[in-house]
């Protein structure tokens, strides 16, 4: 672990310049016990992806960032424009939309809130969350992890990180056999795309709000979607290995003005990009100024990745409110999906 933290530090120093000097002049809000006050609501929606796209530098110029951000605004404007009120029904056989739109076109853009700006860390507009390895890419999976992945695909058991097939049509047979085979997000159990984490990541879709509530004994990180509250026990010891939690067991301590959250004891029901229950995540949360937190994480799981890796991005505070994401309230989709599958089976049986 020490090595990975050191590598992260080196990577961070290489990326940041005079960041440390800037922070010293800032008066940070503090709690009664003298620690930085991390309390607040944060909107994690942003354009910076987890992994750096090929050919991009680690840091963008202000001009390049402005141009890309403008493109997103223009794209949203175009999608918001009126269409023909006398239009016909969409084409039979599907509209060709891929990914989440599933060949049926998903729904209108006005529901979405994908983010419109790149993350600014230490004054730099970043092109990836990943900072170590320095190419901004998640390290390769180990042969063992690839084998596990293949075995999982053969069983068609998608979990938290595997929200759905990219195939515009249906997932392979078996994926709809029972509710337990559906992704955790679809089942309203955890958010999709590691929204609740750890590591906490934006989903590039909507509802990227998080709230931190802090006491001397515990720090709670509330994720709007899907209503996940992770309670970090301060200065505590990890639970015995026999006790496993969906979001792991998080314990916290202060290293100077940085909250360090150490998480282990994951289950085999959640899985971050193919990780095992032995994944170890260290998060470091630092208040940069009155409106910004810096969030850094280092992940270690030797059975999954060839080396530990680190990412960081900022959590900008927002005045917006978190709303209850009462997912079970109206999850008609789950019933529609399973019912559709049963009817397909019936039709196929009758045809035999």
């Amino acid at each position, binding site marked *: 672990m020490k090595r990975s933290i050191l590598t992260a530090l080196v990577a961070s120093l290489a990326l940041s310049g005079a960041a440390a000097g800037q922070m010293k002049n800032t008066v940070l809000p503090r709690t009664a016990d003298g620690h930085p006050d991390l309390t607040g609501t944060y909107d994690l929606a942003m*354009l910076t*992806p987890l*992994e750096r*796209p090929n*050919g*991009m530098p680690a840091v963008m110029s202000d001009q*390049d960032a402005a*141009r*890309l951000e403008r493109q997103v605004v223009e794209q949203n404007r175009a999608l*918001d424009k*009126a*269409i*023909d*009120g*006398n*239009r*016909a*029904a*969409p*084409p*039979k056989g599907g*509209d060709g939309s891929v*990914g*989440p739109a*599933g*060949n*049926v*076109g998903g*729904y*209108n853009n*006005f*529901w*979405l809130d994908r983010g419109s700006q790149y993350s600014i860390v230490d004054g730099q507009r970043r092109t990836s969350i990943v900072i170590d390895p320095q190419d901004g890419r998640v390290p390769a999976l180990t042969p063992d992890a690839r084998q596990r992945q293949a075995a999982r695909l053969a069983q068609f058991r998608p979990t938290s990180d595997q929200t*759905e*097939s990219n195939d515009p049509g249906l997932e392979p047979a078996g*994926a*709809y056999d029972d509710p337990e085979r559906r992704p955790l*997000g*679809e089942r309203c159990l955890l958010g*999709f*795309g590691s929204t609740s984490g750890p590591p906490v990541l934006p989903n*590039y*879709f*909507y509802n990227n709000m998080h709230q931190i509530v802090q006491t001397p004994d515990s720090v709670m990180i509330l994720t709007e*979607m899907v209503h996940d509250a992770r309670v970090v026990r301060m200065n505590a010891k990890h639970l015995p290995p026999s006790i496993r939690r969906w979001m792991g067991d998080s314990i916290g301590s202060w290293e100077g003005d940085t909250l360090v959250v150490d998480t282990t004891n994951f289950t085999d029901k959640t899985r971050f990009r193919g990780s095992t229950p032995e994944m170890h995540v260290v998060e470091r949360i630092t208040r940069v100024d009155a409106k910004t937190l810096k969030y850094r994480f280092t992940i270690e799981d030797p059975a999954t990745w060839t080396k530990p890796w680190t990412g960081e991005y900022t959590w900008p505070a927002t005045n917006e*409110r978190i*709303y209850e*994401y*009462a*997912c079970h*309230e*109206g999850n*008609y*989709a*789950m019933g*529609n*999906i399973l*019912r*559709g599958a049963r009817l*397909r089976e019936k039709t196929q049986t009758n045809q035999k």
Partner: protein
Amino acid sequence: MRNLIAIGAVLTMAAAVPVVAHHAFGGEFDPNKPVLLKGKMIKLEWVNPHAWLHIEVPKSDGTQACQFTPNSKCEEWMVEGGTPNTLLRRGITKESLTVGTELVIDGYQARDHSLNRANGRNITYPDGRKLFLGSSGTGAPTDGADPTEAPKGRGRGGQ
């Protein structure tokens, strides 16, 4: 050359942002059952994970009396939208869209064809303007371009 790299990077970047969704649209709706629905909204379920609009579509062999078209039969359809939370933050509430508002919706029917349910691939007013965005006073996000727009969150909705 620098410009070329920059342009290439822009295109790569735009394509690289991953997009995931709450659930499998492809599993829920049937690409072979496209629908075009024209009717008036009779109910709005402003719930998570997805809002559902109920509309009545006039139909000669409809199963229920229309609420908004006298002496006619209607068929009720449920249309799936996105999470209401995002819209709430922009000041759009359940009250921003009034019952009786005429809508045009295209999408695909649920794979269970006995259900009158579809995804709201496009939800517009009859003139093609997108819902929440196309009309002054809906409480839609304002850019200051329209001085007649109602204050955020105070819209009356509809036409």
